[in-house]
């Protein structure tokens, strides 16, 4: 009500909010993260351009890890389930998250994909994002780390052109390194570019085809797995899982 004269007119009030526009997504992401931590699952958000070699990388990971981990994946795809089918063939139980026109995965899509999927029995859970170096970067999914696949064919200046994506990366996998003899690309320039956009620079040169760098990648996964294994259990992260779930069923 108008406080000046009490005439009954409406009054204009500024409401201070100061809240992230993606606060809703971040809440669901936290929820996913708690689930993963509690089940002792290492969840990784794998991002990169279309054709950067994300699926091939996961296929190679299944081969190189030699059955030491139970792997699983969800793949974001605009229109097909080709990636999930490739991963199944490689021995990685997979689900497709069809995004239609959606250019990225969000925490809710990942949460929904967990339903009816035996993700709790996994050691490593890959969230293969939609191929895109822009949109997926700003959506937290509840992952433990961001891994960005960047192929050597994409050009030396990609890190500086897409700083937001690389700023959030915990690891960059420089893929298709077997092609280097055929390209006029200097790996040192790509690595230098990454150091200018990634405050905690870490990169591995890799080839899913020849197996180059896969040992280092498996080693990185092992180190990350060890952290999750140590933190397993509700007591470790103070989350009893008695919180209201909101969707009324178990998964």
């Amino acid at each position, binding site marked *: *009500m108008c406080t000046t004269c009490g005439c009954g007119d*409406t*009054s*204009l*009030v*500024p*409401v*201070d*909010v*100061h*809240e*992230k*526009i*993606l*606060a*809703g*997504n971040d809440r669901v992401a936290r929820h996913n993260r708690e689930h993963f931590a509690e089940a002792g699952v290492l969840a990784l958000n794998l991002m990169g351009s279309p054709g950067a070699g994300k699926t091939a990388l996961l296929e190679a990971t299944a081969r190189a890890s030699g059955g030491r981990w139970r792997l699983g994946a969800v793949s974001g795809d605009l229109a097909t389930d080709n990636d999930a089918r490739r991963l199944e063939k490689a021995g990685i139980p997979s689900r497709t998250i069809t995004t239609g026109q*959606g*250019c*990225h995965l*969000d925490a809710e899509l990942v949460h929904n994909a967990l339903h009816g999927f035996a993700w709790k029995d996994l050691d490593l859970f890959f969230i293969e994002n939609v191929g895109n170096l*822009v*949109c997926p*970067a*700003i*959506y937290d999914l509840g992952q433990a780390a961001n891994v960005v696949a960047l192929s050597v064919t994409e050009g030396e200046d990609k890190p*500086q052109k897409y*700083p*937001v*994506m690389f*700023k959030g990366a915990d690891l960059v996998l420089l893929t298709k390194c077997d092609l280097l003899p055929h390209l006029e690309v200097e790996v040192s320039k790509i690595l*230098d570019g990454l*150091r*200018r*956009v*990634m*405050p*905690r*620079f870490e990169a591995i040169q890799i080839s899913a085809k020849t197996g180059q760098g896969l040992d280092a990648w498996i080693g990185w996964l092992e180190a990350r797995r060890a952290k999750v294994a140590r933190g397993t259990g509700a007591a470790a992260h103070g989350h009893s899982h008695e919180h209201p779930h909101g969707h009324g069923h178990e998964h």
Partner: protein
Amino acid sequence: MHEYSLVQSLVTRVESLALARKATVVHRLVVSVGELAGLDPELFQTAYDTFRAGTICERAEMELRRVPARWACSGCGREIPKGEVLTCPDCGLPARLSAGGDEILLETVEMEVP
């Protein structure tokens, strides 16, 4: 083109704020966008102007405030100019981004309340 889905999140949030205060009209929004937030401010403005029709934001102008992104050493605070390697040349520690440099925040909503 995640600008449209961000506008959707924004409008949903404003709707719930307005509902909580029984607001009749929303007049103005202030949103701050960090330089490294991964959002094109002009595209976001266009998306907002397209999407707001028929929502509580129909008559609400959106003011976008651009927040610069600055890097500084996470230890000694030495500024690291844009484009440089993001490791402090003195301490060897990783750089840290300035507050709001990578955030998209709904700052203020001006609404008419009974």
